[in-house]
């Protein structure tokens, strides 16, 4: 008995963990948030594998009584988007065709611009950077009509080139910002040493700076892939009907209002469209956090 008492009153070793009120509050909040954010996903997934008959019973949270993958197949290959009935697969390919060059080009341009702004600092670079930042904060709806006119004037309106260059232009401010800040966080002496060694503008960029940029490139890829993939407005306006991205096709499937609404197909189509950014996050989440931390903390 005495031993136990002394153990309790005499502090030694790790402090015993107790479940306090604030702890319970925190866990409670976390659980509530999870339910709140996962509920729509649950409904979507469940609905997408139900038959239309079961959906008709209006039990939105109920598990499917009969599993069917039919809605997924329909959404992918035969759902009607306006006049054609080829499903989302066309949009998927279009989105890939738009996203890959847009992401690659905007990152390359942003890296190059950020590199020259942060390290070479040409005359007027601060003003240029200020203007770019202003560009990042202006609502881009303002630019749409002028851009339409400009591309139409050059007979390039409604082409793949059109939509890709528009994405590069709108991606440039943020890409430049993150690369500029990243390069500015690298020790400047590295740049000086390379100059003493005789390396020029391109050599320093390719041999010294790019190999160091992996973390920030990954951040940029995530930002751009999700941004470009999720874009709806620019795609609708600039891509032209032949190149409409997946998001536009999804909208067309969901908004086709003939006969009964195929909720299960709509849900499957939505999940399919959201899958790419979701996969990107899951695969690179670790890198994403690391990249942001590297950009923010590393000296």
């Amino acid at each position, binding site marked *: 008995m005495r031993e136990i008492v002394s153990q309790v009153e005499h502090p030694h070793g790790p402090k015993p963990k107790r479940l306090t009120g604030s702890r319970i509050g925190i866990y409670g909040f976390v659980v509530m948030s999870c339910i709140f954010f996962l509920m729509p996903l649950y409904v979507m997934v469940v609905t997408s594998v139900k038959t239309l008959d079961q959906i008709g019973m209006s039990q939105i949270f109920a598990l499917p009584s009969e599993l069917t993958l039919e809605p997924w197949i329909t959404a992918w290959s035969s759902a009607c988007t306006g006049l054609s009935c080829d499903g989302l697969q066309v949009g998927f390919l279009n989105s890939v065709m738009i996203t890959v060059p847009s992401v690659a080009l905007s990152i390359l341009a942003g890296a190059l611009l950020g590199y020259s702004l942060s390290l070479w600092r040409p005359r007027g670079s601060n003003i240029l950077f200020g203007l770019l930042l202003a560009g990042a904060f202006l609502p881009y709806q303002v630019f749409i009509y002028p851009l339409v006119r400009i591309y139409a004037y050059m007979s390039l309106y409604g082409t793949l080139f059109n939509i890709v260059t528009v994405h590069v232009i709108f991606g440039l401010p943020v890409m430049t910002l993150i690369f500029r800040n990243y390069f500015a966080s690298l020790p400047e002496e590295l740049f000086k040493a390379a100059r*003493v060694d*005789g390396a020029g503008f391109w050599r320093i960029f390719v041999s010294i700076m790019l190999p160091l940029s992996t973390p920030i490139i990954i951040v940029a890829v995530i930002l751009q892939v999700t941004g470009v993939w999720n874009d709806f407005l620019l795609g609708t306006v600039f891509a032209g009907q032949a190149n409409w991205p997946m998001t536009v096709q999804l909208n067309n499937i969901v908004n086709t209002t003939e006969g009964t609404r195929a909720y299960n197909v709509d849900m499957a189509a939505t999940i399919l469209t959201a899958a790419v950014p979701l996969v990107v996050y899951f695969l690179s989440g670790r890198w994403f956090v690391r990249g942001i931390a590297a950009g923010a903390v590393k000296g």
Partner: protein
Amino acid sequence: MEHTHAHTDTDNRTVEARSEISVSIKDVVIRYGAHTVLDQLSLDIGKNEFLVLLGPSGCGKSTLLNSIAGLLDVTEGEIWISDKNVTWAEPKDRGIGMVFQSYALYPRMTVAENMGFGLKIAGLPKAEVTARVAKAAKILQLEALLKRKPGELSGGQRQRVAIGRAMVRNVDVFLFDEPLSNLDAKLRAELRIEIKRLHQNLGNTMIYVTHDQIEAMTLADRIAVMKGGLIQQLAPPQDVYNKPRNLFVAGFIGSPGMNFFKGTLAVKKGAMVVDVDGLQIPMDGYEQSGGKIVDGMDVILGVRPEHIFLGDPAVHDASESHFQSQGRIEMIEPMGSDTMVWSKLGTQPFTARVAADDPHRVGDEAHFAIDIPKASLFCCESEERI
């Protein structure tokens, strides 16, 4: 500006004694907007000389080094290296190699690639690059590390690689920008010796920026003490230490620092006497430096801790040039090799450096003697040496 011009004569004499001038800085001004970092600075550095630019942060020493390297444009003036005007030349064309505080090694390249990068860019044949890298690696004892990445090296090894990168380029002038500041004390002392040995063996001109006075004292042929974009004093280390030209240099060099006593100067029949809190200190044996002397002027008497002796006057040299006094010991700081003793002259505190086995204790009333010929006397107003 006054400082630099007053110095030109001394500089020329020192440089004439050497055979050739390696680096010459002529009336260089560096300005950022309204802020002047370097003001009309002129400096000649002899061939094979080891010059240290010493000063507190913000004194312009790194700015000067960067402008010599060509990493910073000068606003006015010229820079000459090996009898060529390189004011507008690119860093790579100036015949310099540079070593940085943060080592600045290329993280994704091996040690060998780091050292050979400049040569590769210059288009040297592969065999030549390998040979030069191998030679430098041998001198710096890096042979076993050539395949490693910088991240796998210790701080000392990294800095040796950085030195090697400068060496392989076979340049006339080495520039060091606080190369040892990122290392711990023990490594710093080791690498300091290595740099000194390297200088003795290679015989290049070396310009070395530091805020560490020990590095400056141990390495330099000449030290340029800088403050506010001006060279305060340019002289061999012993001169800077023993005869500081002004109050700033006196206070900056030496650790623990020089003691300063405020007083007034009296001149009687050509002999100077400094009155410190009523104590009459005759300046017998003090060598004047030519500063203006006015009877009754305020002065500052500077005495290094090791020039104050403690103990019975009979024990020490009782020559007339030692000023004898006494005071109570207020504090004792044992430093291992020796001991610092705190006391007061009049009302003004001072430290004396005594032997580690000194018998004095706190509270003792002790005799002390100041070695006047080794003291420094400064004008209170101009802060210049008298």
